[in-house]
């Protein structure tokens, strides 16, 4: 039974992962297709977590990954309205071939090593096929216990990480009235306008405004 589900979910995951990289329809390589495949892949992975008795993580996988993160991705994709701006079919670049070959051979190497029976030999004594108490494994209570004892510090640090990420995301993405992303000519104009404005607004930037340099003269 386990075997059947493993193969089902496993092959599904691999296939959908593959579709992330190479979407099945040659004319539809827009990121949205990759994103959909990705969501499918996450569902398969969640099922595999469930096979591994990691029930909480299976739920989190769906909620956080398939739910939150992928929605964010899809949101950005839709927001940017990215069309097929890649002409990958034609551009088979040398580096790409090398990189692909490298990734493939590395994976192949790892898989061969993993399938080697010696691979798990040194730790085989520590492995358990059957869980001692399946009801106590992988549920919210046990993980919560670990999280707030042994892993309390990393848990707190994660909050710092999220804080940094928020600050970062805000500063990167916030639309600043002072910065424009318009074509060159318009940009210069606005830059000049801004200089004029700065002189009026704040006296300390006056020196800077007195030396009008156009933003684009370097290129």
């Amino acid at each position, binding site marked *: 039974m386990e075997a059947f589900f493993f193969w089902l979910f496993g092959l599904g995951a691999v296939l959908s992962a593959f579709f*992330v990289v190479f979407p099945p329809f040659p004319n539809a390589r827009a990121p949205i297709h*990759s994103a959909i495949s990705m969501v499918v892949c996450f569902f398969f992975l969640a099922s595999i977590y469930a096979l591994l008795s990691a029930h909480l993580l299976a739920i989190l996988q769906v909620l956080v*990954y398939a739910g939150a*993160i992928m929605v964010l*991705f899809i949101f*950005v994709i839709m927001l940017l309205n990215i069309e097929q701006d890649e002409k990958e079919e034609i551009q088979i670049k040398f580096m790409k071939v090398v990189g692909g070959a490298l990734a493939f051979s590395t994976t192949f190497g790892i898989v061969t090593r993993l399938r080697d029976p010696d691979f798990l030999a040194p730790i085989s004594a520590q492995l358990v*096929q059957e869980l001692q108490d399946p009801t106590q494994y*992988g549920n919210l209570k046990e993980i919560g216990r670990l999280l707030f004892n042994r892993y309390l510090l990393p848990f707190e640090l994660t909050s710092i990480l999220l804080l*940094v990420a928020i600050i970062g995301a805000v500063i990167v993405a916030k639309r600043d009235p002072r910065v424009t992303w318009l074509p060159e000519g318009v940009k210069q104009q606005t830059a000049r306008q801004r200089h004029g404005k700065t002189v009026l607004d704040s006296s300390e930037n006056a020196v800077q405004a007195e030396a009008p340099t156009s933003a684009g003269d370097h290129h």
Partner: protein
Amino acid sequence: MTIGLTHYLVLAAVLFGIGSLGVMVRRNAIVVFMCIELMLNAVNLTFIAFSRFRGEMNGHVIAFFVMAVAAAEAAVGLAIILNLFRTRKSLNVDEANLMRH
């Protein structure tokens, strides 16, 4: 046929490989980023598989942290991508050759 640790590890390795292949081959920043997420998921699977067959749950907690990190990365990463798109109207990583003029 019993499904052992090796099966899960190989599955994870294959997913990791597909992810890295995508990073190498695809040039759309968002797709590359998705492939990175795929790699992280493969890692999570490895953690959980080891954890399951060692009969302990440290790996689960670690996978939980990895998810949190992935979420943070998504926030920053997508913001960066958004910003770049607004400046350049393209997401092709190869086109980032402004610096080589």
